[in-house]
């Protein structure tokens, strides 16, 4: 199978984020990491390749800094990488992001395209599904198990509240992958060395721009959410905090 994995670089989970001056986006001087569900999508692609042979290609869209997540993927075992490299990719809505990826990937005729079910920054959960629509491929979302069959794929799809469903899908297809589908691997030392010599193709903004159109939605402002509840913040040494919390539970909340 020839597999494309779409990955995104997002701010680290516990990185303190600050708003930019215009209040429309975050300040970019934070630490970044790969979007966690995308890491699971990559792991799944590597496992499928190890079982059935083929090739794993990783793609991302973003500034120069985003190359880091491609290098990490190459170190884990991906064969080559594609970088849609420009600061402007950050400002695209889900539809245009999917268009840009489709433009860079369309000629490659992948058997399977996988990505995480959503990103930890936007959380729109749309890019994978939109990519399928643009490429005219069938898709399935929130996948927690993949098995290759004679006619395509047998997938385990997660539904709400602990329910599941098996579905059959012909390939080529696009899948969005749920976290926890597998156990993530670490890059080996030899993998990290080899990654330096693996091919990384850069795609410039101008190459895909003709395929993009105007963003049909835009962020007017970004802000710290308004508190819904009055929270009693308790500080101090552990013993004192424990005593105050216990008092609250006993006298105010009356739960002990």
């Amino acid at each position, binding site marked *: 199978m020839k597999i494309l994995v779409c990955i995104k670089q997002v701010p680290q989970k516990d990185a303190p984020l600050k708003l930019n001056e215009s209040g429309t986006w975050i300040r970019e001087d934070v630490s970044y990491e790969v979007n966690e569900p995308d890491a699971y999508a990559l792991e799944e692609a590597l496992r499928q390749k190890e079982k059935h042979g083929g090739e794993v290609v990783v793609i991302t869209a973003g500034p120069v800094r985003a190359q880091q997540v491609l290098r990490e993927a190459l170190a884990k075992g991906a064969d080559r990488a594609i970088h849609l490299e420009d600061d402007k990719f950050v400002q695209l809505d889900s539809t245009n992001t999917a268009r840009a990826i489709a433009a860079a990937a369309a000629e490659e005729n992948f058997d399977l395209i996988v990505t995480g079910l959503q990103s930890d920054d936007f959380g729109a959960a749309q890019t994978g599904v939109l990519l399928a629509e643009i490429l005219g491929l069938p898709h399935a*979302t929130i996948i927690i198990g993949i098995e290759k069959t004679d006619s395509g794929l047998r997938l385990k799809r997660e539904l709400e509240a602990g329910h599941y469903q098996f*579905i059959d899908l012909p390939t080529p297809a696009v899948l969005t992958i749920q976290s926890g589908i597998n156990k993530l691997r670490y890059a080996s030392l030899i993998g990290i060395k080899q990654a330096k010599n693996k091919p990384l193709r850069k795609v410039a903004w101008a190459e895909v721009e003709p395929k993009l159109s105007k963003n049909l939605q835009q962020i007017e402002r970004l802000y710290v959410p308004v508190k819904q509840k009055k929270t009693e913040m308790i500080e101090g040494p552990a013993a004192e905090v424990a005593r105050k919390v216990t008092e609250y539970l006993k006298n105010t909340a009356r739960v002990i």
Partner: protein
Amino acid sequence: MADTILVVAEQREGKLNRVSLETIAGAQAISKETGWPVEVVLAGSDIGSLAQELAAKAVARVSVLEAPALTTYTSDAYVFALKQFIQEKQPKLVLFPHTYQVRDFAPRLALALDRSLISDAVGYKYENGRLLFTRQMFQGKFAADVSFAGDGPWLATFQIGAFRGDQAEAGSAPVENVTAAVSEGSPRVTPHEVFQEAKQAVDLSQSEVIVAVGRGIKEQKNLALAEELAKALGGEVAASRPICDNGWLPLERQIGSSGQTVAPKLYVALGISGAIQHLVGMKGSRTIVAINKDPEAPIFEIADVGVVGNLFDVVPALTEEIKKAKSA
């Protein structure tokens, strides 16, 4: 044509998904400000009786979009049928509940209509004649007000719990039967039956006290801290998704959109940042205590009591205090 709001209600296997009523409540609220009437559509086959429940709400019309091809959900059939229906009706705004099913087809539907979908909104604002949708960003650390550019139909999904279904205004609406457009090709996805993995040994929805752990617990052996606190409080241990993904606790103890939804008297969140997917599963809890080292963690937005600190110091001390208080 006058502007309308179309709510796409959801059913599965002949059962109405209750979150459809939340979306109707949201649509009614928007309608009060914009003056756009609310209509509802329900897709499926042999679902006339479900439409009656929707028609008992204060909406202008309920359309039952039926075809045998819609008996079992497939994205291909849903996109095809709803695209045609929306193109004929030309509503200004199309609203969905943000369910797993909607996540599966709504983006494709929006693009097939050459339109845009704002997904997982928690609310809306109507400012100077402009409609904005509020959504959470960066795992809830920020909120964003998002606008549509270009012509309608505009599509948006509302997060579960964004509105209260029991506050959907009652009324009486006519029901209209519509034969759904069906594509000539068969759907590319073949769905099989929905199932549950194993009988759940613990039903956390019945627990009065839940002590839940997140990434901040760091190592599996540290779960003992949570277990001792739960024991002192007479409660059950639960977790956010990453803990169950790691296999540290069984999936049946996972709280959140993909796990169980709970509303105990007391919910203690240890090292849980409070991603949206977790919050939807526990925000109905009566008293929420959160202990986290990150003062910016979104869990503090919904906590009654917040402790910014090292849980490895605070939790053992708290366990001792509670034991003392209980034996006093």
